[in-house]
């Protein structure tokens, strides 16, 4: 098809031809075109179907406010629905497909909805599909969603990259029209760091769409000249194709830069888009204004578009929207379209100016405009044959970003629109059309003044070039009262004047109710063309003024943002960084199975040849450790270095038990409570010197405990002499456990570690392998004779290999977190399942650890009545009566014969493992009055797993209850 509607002039590069397809049909355009301008140039007006009634639609606008011309761009995994054809930059090979139609755009079976429109008025679903209730979710809603909708997603993984970034500037200028360019020029010449962002690929704003001159040159040329000058300034960053999507706190703005959307696909390794966080000392909003339509019967046909858009297509893109064109306006700006089109040689049939009492009352043309019906001031009607109609109902300043902090715009009667008030985001000023200053001269002036004021500039500012300074003249006309049919207000959501009337009639007169009841202003365009029109109609219907009726809340983002852009790099395997333990590389060599613990990858178990099932590996690791010796990487436990002359007193306050009395060279198990008396964390803390302790925390709470201690140090007790620093990553730490633990370590540690020299709970600095500095702790989580040995992290891998090599005669096993868990449950030690944030020391059987001889965080509140109930939960051990029966963590305790209802619930299983020593599942649990129920039989019931197992309540210490092994 030829570009039959292409006219002279424009800012397109006719020297190059770009090929593209729409619904499979091939077309051509030029660099500088949008998809919409190129389609219009080729005589294609029908670009989409409406949301609800599947009405044929063409572009209403030439910008990001477009409600109608939504298409699916690209194909395969890169297919993107709901792309506005009006801002999609044309590239060679572009593929576009219409959406929300079946089987084709020209013949859409769902257009039957339009015939049934009386059934689809606002609130129809809610009133109609009420019965039976269960049908809503299962039947009605899916059908409605299928019938009414926008585009569809590809359901494939997005193949593109997305970056995030951070920028800083003295002045962020949002919008590069005359006001924004002048603000950037003023600030840039003054040496300020400026960012100028514009959503368009060509800076200049309306200057590119108008025929005005600035000074002696065309406006578009003046804009290009300013952009050229700004580009030479090292202190100015020009960001075309960048939409500032939100104004957030403290001068922070969100912006989406589209680096690859105008290419067939982004360059390899390069992001498609970048989500920028811009830190601006000051900002100038120069985002322009959006034209609004006038509602009249059948005002939504392809070929009917906003007057400013039609002018933009003619002037910027050298496209006429039709061969016979009329203009319908209530203001002088609409007359500019008539003048410009006429100057371009377009057949301008008639100007219908509502201020003279003339109205358009109807239109015809199934898939595109064929004629309109005009009614003059005397009531005479006549049809005129046109294939395009330009409509102007006035201009609404784009106050969105100004209102992102909930500032309410104020009504300006002179331009008949909302304009920014005085309570916008701190540091943000508004200039140009966005401020309601609609002349070019006014835009230049307010842009310059905004920059001067924002930065407190005192030097010479750029001269203001000569430019048109017309006073806007408008007589409001929101909707043409004549006509019984539907007059569209919000074309994207198919909201008509009738819908607003219905809402008013049913007392949904608040703008927020109006929005929810009719869907006015929802979806991708967020009502940029329809909102003010809708609330003006509501104001008329309710006899209130427009400002009294008010606006809905403006929220970010200003225009739709792809989900991938919000995710950035944090997706898939890169969702979060990984932490690797010192033994990670050794474990990988052994084909170990890893488990995520926060960001850590810990060894879960290390399968040996022939082991096909995880339990085989775990049972072997447990048995081997208890038989001889096992090694486990415990680096992930938090380590906090606590120094200072008050370190002991500090620990006494943060731990429930006492540490100031701990002797140098010893360590102790500590229990940390929260302010509310519940247990926060546990671990061992060693005293390495008079004023030096090293605390260990659980892996999960390593960061939290450190933060808590810093809070205590800095905020609660700033007078204490305490210094803290995390050393979690500085030391590779291994647990060496089992009857041969000492024998193995004697081959590694240079000092005497006999029971006499290094007794149970001993701790201190040692050297290993002939002089390497190390730390040794004689502590045990497994219940075995055990040590934890630490060396600087870089030596961790070598130490592990050295221990395995030197201790080979003891057949050492490396065990993972599963075996660790089995052994701690066998020993009755609490861990994550018990340290659940809801439990007290008393619940855990550790009540005596809360020292009453000193004060500590949580001590007082741990004595609350509700927490000290003697019949409350106590930690117990659990075994199935039938050793072959399976237990499940989370199962609830019930008495034999009791109904499985909440009233009979006596507690729950917190942790469950299979004990190869006992030969059955074993578990820990919290049982009401549990200490007195040892030996009793109950049931462990899990309704989700369908389990009801008879169990015996036993001591939580399944293995070596007297602790003889660990003291060995």
């Amino acid at each position: 098809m030829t570009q039959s509607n292409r006219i002279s002039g424009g800012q397109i590069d006719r020297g190059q031809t770009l090929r593209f397809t729409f619904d499979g049909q091939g077309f051509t355009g030029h660099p500088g075109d949008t998809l919409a301008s190129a389609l219009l140039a080729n005589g294609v007006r029908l670009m989409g179907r409406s949301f609800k009634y599947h009405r044929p639609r063409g572009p209403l606008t030439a910008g990001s406010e477009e409600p109608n011309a939504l298409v699916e761009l690209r194909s395969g995994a890169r297919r993107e629905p709901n792309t506005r054809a009006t801002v999609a930059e044309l590239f060679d090979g572009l593929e576009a497909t219409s959406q929300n139609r079946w089987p084709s755009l020209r013949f859409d079976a769902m257009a039957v909805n339009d015939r049934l429109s009386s059934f689809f008025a606002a609130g129809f679903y809610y009133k109609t599909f009420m019965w039976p209730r269960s049908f809503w979710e299962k039947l009605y809603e899916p059908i409605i969603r299928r019938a009414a909708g926008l585009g569809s997603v590809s359901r494939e993984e997005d193949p593109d990259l997305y970056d995030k970034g951070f920028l800083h500037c003295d002045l962020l200028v949002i919008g590069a029209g005359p006001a924004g360019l002048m603000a950037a020029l003023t600030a840039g010449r003054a040496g300020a760091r400026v960012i100028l962002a514009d959503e368009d690929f060509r800076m200049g704003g309306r200057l590119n769409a108008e025929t005005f001159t600035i000074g002696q040159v065309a406006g578009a040329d003046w804009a290009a000249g300013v952009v050229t000058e700004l580009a030479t300034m090292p202190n100015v960053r020009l960001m075309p194709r960048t939409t500032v999507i939100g104004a957030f706190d403290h001068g922070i703005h969100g912006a989406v830069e589209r680096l690859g959307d105008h290419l067939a696909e982004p360059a390899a390794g390069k992001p498609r888009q970048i989500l920028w966080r811009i830190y601006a000392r000051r900002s100038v909003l120069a985002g322009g204004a959006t034209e609004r339509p006038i509602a009249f019967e059948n005002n939504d046909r392809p070929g009917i578009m906003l007057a400013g858009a039609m002018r933009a297509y003619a002037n910027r893109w050298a496209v006429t929207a039709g061969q016979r064109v009329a203009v319908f306006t209530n203001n002088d700006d609409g007359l500019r379209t008539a003048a410009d089109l006429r100057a371009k040689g377009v057949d301008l049939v008639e100007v219908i100016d509502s201020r003279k009492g003339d109205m358009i009352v109807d239109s015809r043309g199934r898939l595109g405009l064929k004629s309109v019906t005009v009614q003059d001031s005397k009531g005479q009607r006549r049809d005129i044959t046109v294939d395009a109609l330009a409509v102007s109902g006035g201009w609404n300043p784009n106050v969105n970003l100004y209102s992102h902090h909930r500032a309410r715009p104020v009504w300006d009667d002179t331009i008949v629109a909302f304009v920014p008030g005085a309570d916008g985001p701190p540091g943000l000023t508004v200039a140009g059309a966005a401020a309601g200053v609609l002349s070019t001269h006014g835009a230049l002036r307010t842009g310059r003044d905004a920059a001067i004021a924002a930065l407190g500039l005192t030097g010479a500012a750029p001269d203001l070039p000569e430019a048109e300074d017309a006073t806007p003249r408008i007589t409001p006309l929101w909707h043409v009262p004549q006509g019984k049919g539907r007059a569209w207000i919000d074309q994207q959501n198919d909201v008509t004047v009738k819908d607003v009337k219905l809402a008013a009639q049913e007392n949904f007169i608040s703008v927020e109710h109006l929005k929810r009841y009719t869907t006015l202003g929802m979806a991708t365009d967020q009502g940029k063309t329809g909102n003010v029109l809708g609330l003006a109609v509501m104001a008329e219907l309710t006899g209130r003024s427009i400002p009294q009726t008010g606006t809905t809340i403006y929220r970010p983002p200003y225009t739709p943002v792809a989900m991938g852009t919000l995710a950035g790099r944090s997706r898939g395997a890169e969702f979060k960084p990984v932490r690797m333990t010192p033994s990670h590389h050794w474990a990988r060599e052994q084909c170990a199975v890893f488990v995520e613990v926060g960001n850590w990858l810990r060894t879960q178990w290390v399968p040996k040849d022939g082991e096909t099932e995880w339990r085989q590996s775990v049972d072997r690791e447990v048995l081997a450790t208890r038989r001889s010796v096992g090694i486990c990487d415990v680096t992930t436990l938090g380590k906090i270095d606590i120094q200072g002359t008050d370190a002991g007193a500090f620990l006494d306050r943060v731990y429930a038990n006492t540490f100031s009395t701990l002797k140098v060279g010893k360590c102790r198990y500590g229990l940390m409570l929260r302010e509310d008396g519940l247990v926060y964390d546990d671990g061992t803390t060693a005293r390495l010197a008079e004023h030096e302790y090293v605390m260990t925390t659980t892996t999960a709470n390593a960061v939290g405990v450190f933060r808590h201690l810093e809070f205590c140090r800095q905020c609660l007790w700033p007078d204490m002499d305490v210094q803290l620093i995390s050393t979690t990553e500085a030391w590779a730490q291994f647990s060496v456990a089992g009857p041969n633990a000492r024998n193995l370590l004697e081959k590694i540690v240079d000092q005497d570690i006999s029971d006499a020299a290094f007794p149970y709970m001993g701790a201190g600095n040692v050297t290993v392998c002939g002089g390497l500095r190390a730390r040794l702790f004689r502590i045990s989580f497994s219940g075995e004779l055990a040590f934890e040995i630490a060396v600087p992290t870089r030596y961790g891998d070598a130490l592990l290999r050295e221990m395995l090599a030197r201790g080979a005669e003891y057949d050492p096993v490396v065990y993972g977190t599963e075996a660790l868990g089995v052994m701690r449950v066998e020993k009755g030690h609490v861990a994550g399942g018990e340290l659940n944030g809801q439990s007290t020391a008393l619940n855990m059987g550790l009540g005596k650890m809360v020292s009453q001889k000193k004060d500590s965080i949580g001590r007082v509140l741990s004595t609350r009545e509700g927490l000290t109930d003697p019949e409350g939960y106590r930690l117990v051990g659990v075994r199935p009566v039938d050793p072959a029966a399976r237990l499940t963590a989370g199962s609830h305790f019930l008495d034999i014969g009791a109904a499985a209802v909440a009233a009979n619930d006596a507690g729950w299983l917190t942790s469950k493992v299979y004990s190869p020593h006992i030969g059955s599942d074993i578990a820990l649990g919290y049982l009401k009055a549990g200490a007195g129920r040892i030996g009793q039989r109950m049931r462990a019931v899990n309704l989700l797993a369908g389990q009801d197992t008879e169990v015996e309540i036993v001591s939580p210490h399944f293995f070596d209850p007297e602790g003889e092994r660990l003291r060995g």
Partner: protein
Amino acid sequence: MAEILQAMTALGAHGPARVAVGPLSITERVDLALASVAERRGRGADLVGAASPAGLPLPGPARYQAGTPFGTFWVAPGMWFAEAPFASHEWIADQLRAALGDAASITEQTDAWVIFDLVVVGEGVGLASLLERLCNVDFPAAPDGFATRTVMDHLGIYLIRQGAGAARIYGPRSSAQSLLHALEAAARAVW
């Protein structure tokens, strides 16, 4: 001292990593020892008195200061990180303790961190275009010797500006691979 156990770098190798992307080179530094120096309460004057003869600068907030043998940067009120050549200062904590006595709390930090030196060659290129994709530091506006705590790829790091085209990064050692990947990926997106 002869190496008793063979050291492994944070990236699981036996030598430092070197990566080049466009004009950027990323060099892992395994030849630096590091310790924290935290002033004991009320002992500021004693610390200052002992630090100078020990060759330990104590710069103000957000600053790195080179010295011999210690280069130091401020990390918190009354707290610094001191770096020195690993070959001569593997026992950096003991060495500092000996010099500073009980005026400060010293903690070895050498292996808590992975260190990357970022250098961009070429006039006017600089590191700003890379770092703006990684952290919210206003690198172009920062002076040389600027030292700050920031976040890259969800990881808390220290960033020291050594010039418009040079910076040192201290990142958590266990996440060295993730951090290097983030640096490389960002660099490939820029260059």
